[in-house]
């Protein structure tokens, strides 16, 4: 036993010259009475009820959360509903896509793509033919309305050097 242990022993002996009071009989009576009253008041709680109750509460919370998420989602998408309906009307039966293309050429391409749901040799060949037709028309329609180079001139293109220039 080292010196520290001896000193601790001596200190413990000193501390043991006092003692902690034990609970009195009056306190025992008071506390056991209160505990028995609580025993009679609190209903019998079966152990298996605890997980069942937790499960029910969790399910209810999940239903509330999903309902709230649906409401928020509906509200957020409602402003897109009207424009999607208008686009559908314009396309004439073409199902609305998440992103409706506005270019008439692309719109025609999309409508062709949507119609070609049947996969057999004849329908596929006719679909390819129609696609080819549309694609052939595309450069012609582009050539019919060529961009005006004068109007579309960039401000960055320098004018040719004149006689008054320093160079």
């Amino acid at each position, binding site marked *: 036993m080292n010196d520290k242990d001896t000193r601790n022993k001596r200190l413990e002996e000193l501390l043991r*010259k*006092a*003692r*902690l*009071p034990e609970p009195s009989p009056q306190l025992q009576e008071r506390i056991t009475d209160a*505990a028995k009253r*609580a*025993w009679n008041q609190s209903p019998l709680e079966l152990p298996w009820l605890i997980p069942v109750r937790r499960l029910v509460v969790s399910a209810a919370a999940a239903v509330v959360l999903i309902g709230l998420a649906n409401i928020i989602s509906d509200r957020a998408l409602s402003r897109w509903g009207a424009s999607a309906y208008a686009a559908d009307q314009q396309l004439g039966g073409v199902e609305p896509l998440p992103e409706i293309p506005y270019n008439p050429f692309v719109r025609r391409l999309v409508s062709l793509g949507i119609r070609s749901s049947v996969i057999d040799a004849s329908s596929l060949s006719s679909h390819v033919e129609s696609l080819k037709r549309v694609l052939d028309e595309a450069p012609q329609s582009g050539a019919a309305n060529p961009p005006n180079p004068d109007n579309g001139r960039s401000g960055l293109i320098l004018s040719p050097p004149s006689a008054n220039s320093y160079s």
Partner: protein
Amino acid sequence: MDKNLAENELRAALASDDPAAVELLWNCYASDLFAFLQAVLRSRHDAEDVLQTVFVRIVRKRHRLAGARCLDAYVYRIARNEASRLARCRKKEQTVRVESESWLMVRQSRPEPSDLVEQLQAALARLPQPQREVIVMKVYKERTFLDISRLLGLPANTVASRYRYGMEKLRTLLGNLIS
């Protein structure tokens, strides 16, 4: 009565919802809990009030207690929580503690001057709560470090170091009495 036997009897009474479990609870834990609460709260009156709250709470949670792996650790956990709650309330209410209230007593078998008891109480009261509760459980309830670590849910090394630091502080505070 053997501790395990008493605990088994208590478990059976709790499981069968027998109100006699209250008396068994008292016999098993009241003395130790009262000492522990006095060490934590440094007040006999507060310890009495908290002990009552602890017993009522145990009774309300009796089915969980019946299924607890360590009954005594569960009971100590409730006592510790209730003591902390009271301490927080006191802090919030800015209640001034009556320092003169005695929670240590003179031994009947070896009467000592009351002055000594007051000095011991004052020295213990100046220790931080974690060190004080370990020293009280070790010295006055003769618990081992392993026991204390299990009851308080702490590593045994932590309990041992709290005891060591607490004893060092006490040695400084009670230097004149040790010689």
